């Protein structure tokens, strides 16, 4: 059997095993790679960096456990940046699973690195509300009509940082960490555009391409996939080196690069096999015509 025939008959499970090895081996050796923030990510970082102390940031957790490797590092990096700069963080969720992700973030960021920040004064977790884009539309008009309590059931009137918040228009920036519908697009449509509120996004790589048309006029900036998260972490570490060890996305960019290289090799081999097979068939037809 020729090499070409072997390549054509290769079992897909061998490719799965190669991919598993391509991810597992770099995870063991942890190669460090240098990541530089791109302009679309830097704009989000620069915006948060430029806001005066006490500015209000609304962060929406519109994703679930299935996309944690991509979304959670960007959410944590944004939360660290916001709290480090002493801005006020309002956490909401348009996804049922988002509330639990916000709880995880509170454990890993607020209760670990920012124990001196006070709940209700520096950050608040308002939790999930049903309604998808209808929820965004509702809080755009009157936030307290829908959010009568925080996620723990405390009356919002008893929360100091909620006293001067009537609607989304009171926010200085909306950051949506999302992986589908409702997501960044809906926050642009129902809050950013009608209220002229800056909207930034952090989304899975699958989603990122669909949001580029909104940049830069309707979308302030975007973190796309693990690469976007790593770029934001790189910007954060460059300014605040104490967060180097918390940079989850930067730490797994090595396996990501190796896996990408492997896929490029698969694509090249697949195409080479295809063209070789086509040439063989063409030769076979010419030989058949002569005989």
């Amino acid at each position, binding site marked *: 059997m020729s090499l070409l025939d072997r390549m054509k008959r290769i079992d897909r499970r061998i490719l799965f095993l190669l991919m598993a090895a391509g*991810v597992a081996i770099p*995870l063991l050796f942890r190669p460090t790679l240098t990541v530089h923030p791109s302009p679309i990510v830097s704009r989000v970082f620069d915006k948060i960096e430029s806001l005066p102390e006490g500015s209000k940031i609304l962060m929406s957790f519109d994703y679930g456990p299935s*996309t944690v490797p991509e979304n959670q590092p960007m959410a944590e990096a944004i939360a660290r940046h916001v709290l480090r700069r002493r801005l006020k963080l309002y956490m909401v969720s348009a996804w*049922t699973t988002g*509330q639990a992700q916000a709880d995880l973030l509170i454990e890993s960021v607020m209760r670990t690195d920012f124990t001196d920040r006070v709940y209700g004064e520096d950050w608040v977790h308002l939790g999930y509300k049903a309604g998808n884009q209808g929820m965004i*539309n509702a809080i755009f008009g009157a936030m307290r009509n*829908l959010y009568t309590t925080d996620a723990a059931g405390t009356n919002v009137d008893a929360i100091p940082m909620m006293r001067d918040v009537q609607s989304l228009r009171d926010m200085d920036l909306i950051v949506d960490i999302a992986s589908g519908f409702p997501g960044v697009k809906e926050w*642009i449509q*129902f809050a950013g555009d009608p209220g002229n509120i800056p909207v930034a996004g952090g989304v899975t790589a699958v989603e990122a*391409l669909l949001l580029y048309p909104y940049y830069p006029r309707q979308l302030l900036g975007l973190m796309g996939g693990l690469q976007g998260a790593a770029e934001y972490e790189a910007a954060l570490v460059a300014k605040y080196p104490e967060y180097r060890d918390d940079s989850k996305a930067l730490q797994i960019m090595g396996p990501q690069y190796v896996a990408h290289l492997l896929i490029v090799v698969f694509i090249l081999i697949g195409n080479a096999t295809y063209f070789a097979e086509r040439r063989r068939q063409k030769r076979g037809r010419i030989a058949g015509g002569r005989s």
Partner: protein
Amino acid sequence: MTGVERIELWIGALLTLMVYSFLYRDNPFYKFAEHFFVGITAAYAMVLAFWNTLMPNCFGQIAPSLVGHVLPTAAENPANPVRWIPLLFGLLLLARLVAPLAYLSRWAMALVIGYAAGANFTRYLQSDFMGQVRSSMVPLLVRDAGGIAYGSSLSNLVLVAGLISALAYFFFSKEHTGMFGRASRFGIWTLMVAFGAAFGYTVMARVSLLIGRFQHLGRWLGDIF
């Protein structure tokens, strides 16, 4: 690591292995993990919607004193009888379960569809139609303090050429021949580049998720050995 954390680690790892077993072939373990996930997600969504939305925004405002013992903050506010209206329409949706009254659910559906269509129409018109048209109107020759900004000019040229040619490809009222045909062909190339970028991003996303699962499995193996 606490006992609860260890149980979480084991459940996550075993379910991951069950799901990945599909890569070899379909099997009962994969089926179990799939159904388990769907069931858990549905139940979780239902419970969260009840306690986060229905209780504080509906029942807590209709009868604050009644739900006050399970949601103390609700008792602090006066009753809001207007909330009977959405509750009534919500109940009408359940009329589908009773055949003679099934037609009543159409009223609630009409309200939902009417609201969604109305709200979406204006927002899509502003953000996706007008907003995108406005964003596409860019100067082909960009000037800055140092003269012509070649990078920005090229970027805008690619955007405009790609947009017009892709639109030409989807214009079927004219035969795709001559200059129009060439523009249409360029449109196909533009679309192919976009599909390639989408594929690349999808691969990146899937690999990220794979890395996340491998990290979890690594922690699990580390706990065992």
